[in-house]
């Protein structure tokens, strides 16, 4: 075993290496040099270092454009992983910037280090086609996120949320590991494409069915699809706002990309069908059921929420349902549609959490009534919220609509039988009509309701304001000119041969 090409490995993993160095730099600077200084200063420095590290990784990805595969898919770099990694890094930078103006913890260095570690896990997650690596990076992401959820140590609900998240996550990880080990046992390989080759057969092995379901349970947890969504409302509500934003945006992007890879590459022989009156066993019907249940339950449960964060959590469950439709299409177009949808969704939901973070910081709560009269207390913030909510509701020309349209069209266009999936599209479109109701409830507070404690202007930290306006501009831009992203994604997907 002397043939390990470390140089090749390093060449592919430069962005990740930059992040690891940044983690150490953040920790070192905070623990060694800044110990006694004021907390807000420490946060600013830590955020600056984090952003610089992420920016460095972005620059490397853009300039060097690494391509290649290390050790049979252990680490893959192609144009698709590049786009996704760029999105993840951008989301992390924005999350870090939102975190600067929050004061839930005295441990600034550790917080930003964990933020970067979670991102590191996500980056590995999307750039591997190896079962073992998938599991390891999944754990790296999840463990960092559990801690991030619990970071507001003085608040009981933060600890409770983290506990729930951790217990559910631990169970789900056990399922995933069991499922993946069965896949390995059945195929004798940890490489996804070899797994697929070994499993391709005329009929489904019962053991394979078990392995498939177990694996999907784990990923269903990661992306918060019904019935594995129970952690989401508590985590979204209890976690510090920036942590919740990362769980809702970055973690979702990575989770969906890896899920799509696992099922389309690793389980490509066991699709089955969920077409109306023509069902066949495989992973498609399983995911179709999860998607239908997520859209139904997420949208209906969101209606009755009074906390905006819980509302966003259930809306995230519903969006997981729409995104699963993108996984179901299992073709190049569907994958491009899915990645477009998750990236724009990540930006949108990050923005929504950013607004909530500001409002909660100033008014002390995240209830719908805390938003009352926001349009007169902070007009720019209200306008950002308007854009985010309408995009989530799928109002054109915002990306929520373009993404849905693209996902539906790609799903129906995926193969000769796929018109049979029209029932899912009808359900999805119908449920998005339901969703308009609760998004309008939020906007009603923002624009219609009278402010509760006077019309005094709400002081918005300048940095948060800038970040939110940037996010809103990005959302509007990606909606009005979606081809900027879509054409790149399509080229990347075609290049990767998916």
């Amino acid at each position: 075993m002397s043939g390990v090409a470390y140089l090749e490995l390093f060449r592919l993993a430069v962005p990740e290496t930059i992040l690891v160095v940044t983690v150490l730099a953040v920790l070192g600077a905070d623990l060694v040099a800044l110990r006694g200084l004021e907390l807000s200063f420490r946060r600013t420095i830590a955020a600056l270092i984090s952003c610089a590290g992420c920016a460095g990784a972005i620059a490397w990805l853009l300039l060097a454009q690494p391509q290649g595969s290390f050790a049979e898919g252990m680490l893959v770099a192609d144009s698709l992983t590049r786009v996704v990694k760029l999105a993840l890094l951008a989301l992390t930078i924005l999350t870090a910037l939102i975190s600067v103006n929050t004061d839930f913890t005295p441990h600034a260095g550790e917080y930003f280090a964990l933020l970067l570690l979670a991102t590191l896990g996500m980056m590995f997650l999307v750039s591997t086609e190896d079962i073992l690596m998938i599991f390891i990076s999944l754990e790296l992401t999840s463990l960092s996120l559990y801690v991030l959820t619990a970071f507001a140590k003085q608040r009981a609900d933060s600890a409770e949320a983290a506990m729930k998240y951790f217990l559910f996550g631990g169970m789900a990880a056990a399922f995933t590991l069991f499922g993946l080990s069965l896949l390995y046992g059945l195929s004798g390989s940890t490489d996804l494409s070899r797994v697929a080759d070994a499993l391709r057969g005329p009929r489904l092995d019962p053991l394979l069915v078990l392995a498939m379901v177990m694996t999907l349970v784990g990923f269903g947890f990661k992306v918060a699809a019904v019935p594995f969504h129970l952690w989401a409302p508590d985590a979204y509500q209890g976690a510090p706002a920036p942590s919740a934003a990362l769980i809702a945006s970055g973690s979702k992007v990575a989770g969906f990309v890896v899920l799509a890879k696992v099922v389309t590459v690793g389980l490509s022989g066991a699709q089955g069908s969920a077409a109306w009156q023509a069902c066949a066993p495989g992973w498609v019907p399983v995911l179709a059921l999860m998607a239908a249940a997520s859209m139904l339950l997420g949208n209906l449960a969101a209606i009755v929420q009074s906390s905006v964060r819980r509302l966003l959590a259930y809306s995230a469950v519903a969006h997981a349902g729409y995104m699963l439709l993108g996984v179901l299409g299992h073709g190049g177009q569907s994958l491009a549609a899915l990645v477009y949808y998750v990236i724009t969704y990540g930006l949108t939901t990050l923005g929504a959490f950013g607004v909530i973070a500001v409002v909660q910081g100033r008014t002390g709560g995240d209830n719908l009534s805390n938003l009352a009269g926001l349009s007169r207390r902070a007009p720019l913030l209200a306008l950002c919220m308007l854009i985010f909510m309408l995009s989530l509701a799928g109002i054109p020309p915002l990306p929520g609509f373009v993404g849905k349209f693209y996902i539906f069209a790609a799903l129906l266009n995926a193969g000769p039988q796929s018109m049979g999936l029209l029932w899912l599209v009808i359900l999805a479109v119908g449920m998005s009509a339901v969703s308009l109701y609760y998004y309008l409830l939020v906007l009603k507070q923002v624009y219609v309701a009278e402010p509760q404690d006077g019309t005094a202007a709400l002081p918005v930290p300048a940095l948060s304001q800038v970040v939110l306006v940037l996010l809103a501009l990005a959302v509007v831009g990606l909606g009005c000119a979606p081809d900027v992203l879509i054409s790149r994604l399509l080229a990347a997907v075609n290049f990767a041969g998916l």
Partner: protein
Amino acid sequence: MLAWTIYISLIGVGVLMALPRGKPGAARAVALLAALGGFTCALAGAATLDPGRLSTVTRLRWIPSLGIEYHLAADGISLTLVLLTGIATIAGILFSWNVEHRAKEFFAFYLLLIAGVYGVFLSFDVFLLFVFYELAIIPKYFLIAIWGSTRKEYGAMKLALYSFVGSAMVLVGLVAAYVLAGAKTMSLLELARYPFPESFQMWAFPLVFIGFAVLAGLWPFHTWAPTGHVAAPTAASMLLAGVVMKLGAYGCLRVAMTLFPHGLDPWGFSLLGFGSWRDVLSLLAVVGIVYGGLVALVQRDFKFVIGYSSVSHMGFVLLGLLTLNTVGVSGAVLQMFSHGVIAGLLFAVVGRMVYDRTHTRELGKLELMNLNRAMPFAAVTFIIAGMASMGLPGFSGFWAELQVLVGAWQAFPTFAVLAGFGILVGAAYILRAVQKAFFAEPEEESVGAVPNGHGPLALPPITVPERLGAFLLIGCTLAIGLYPRLLLHLIIPGLGSPLFEWLAKGGTP
């Protein structure tokens, strides 16, 4: 040139957002300027473009990966409705001259709505049309929920959800059509040429048609209309009835009937006496005409009378479309214009002239106020609008409803008779409203209920913008009533384009 109708409105939105707060005068001026600019562009377009041909204004590749284009174009039908939008916009702003509360936001939402409406009428890419169509929903919600009256939040939410459910139905049909045609184009012209399988058209047509018709007030999906109109502030109800309901009817004609003409063919079997979607839908249209009229006849709230009358008049539009002959369909388009102007005028009298001054719309209370003497201008305006609404000769409503009836007589005589009955009911509820609101003789003992029992009620006088708005709308309905060729020379050549091939074949059930 025509594309600037959209851009000017959007620029208006931008300028309004940049204005400082608390300057309602400046906001009004900006809004009026934008509206005048939009109308000028519309007029210039109508004067220069050939109505018989599809004139492309702008055609850009918007999302090449999905084959979606930014294609703005116009034919005679679009031009008619763009003109209507221009007129209704100006009138709406003139009649909301008294908005002081959050004025700049009011006009910003107003112009955003208008931009969406112009966009729908000019889009010849179905995706783009849908984008503009949905863009118009959200401002409506805010206009009603913030500046409305009676049960405004309920009315606003109901309207938004009805519109969105309707557009969800449309979206399902359009996505399926897009995929069936190869997922390469959303261009209306290309899709209209694609031979969709008949079995597909049979379910896609009713889905898309009804989806659009929800916004056109098709019975029994009309219930958003009266509550929405009543809750809305004056300008918004004028626009809702005047223009937004036309979006639905326009969608039925431009998208549903153009893309899926075979959906109108007979099923090949008969169910409860119905042999095709055309039978079912035209029955619903006729029920809407009669039902809307009868319900308007018993309303106690002045604005509900007008709200239900809109349902009734929009029934004529839908009935006209389903006749599938040139007389009927051109009548339907003319009726869209005519109703847009007349309903705007009626809502202006009720909402702005009467309600903003008396603070009541209950006919029972208005009866006591002797309004014909307190507000002679409002009374005269309402009578003129009422006559136009009844369809008296000399007003635009006459030609429109006559054409629809003639067309319906050729296609389905029974329905034509029922629709004729609807016109009679229309005369009845208008006369009742005129009598109750303006000319009731207060009984002796109830005179004391009037704040100052002697002489006519002292109310603020009718302002100049109101007069201008009223003259504008009355002028339009009279002009078309006296010389209908003014619009028919836009509409009829427009219907001759290849997009409406089914018209030539239609007419026989």
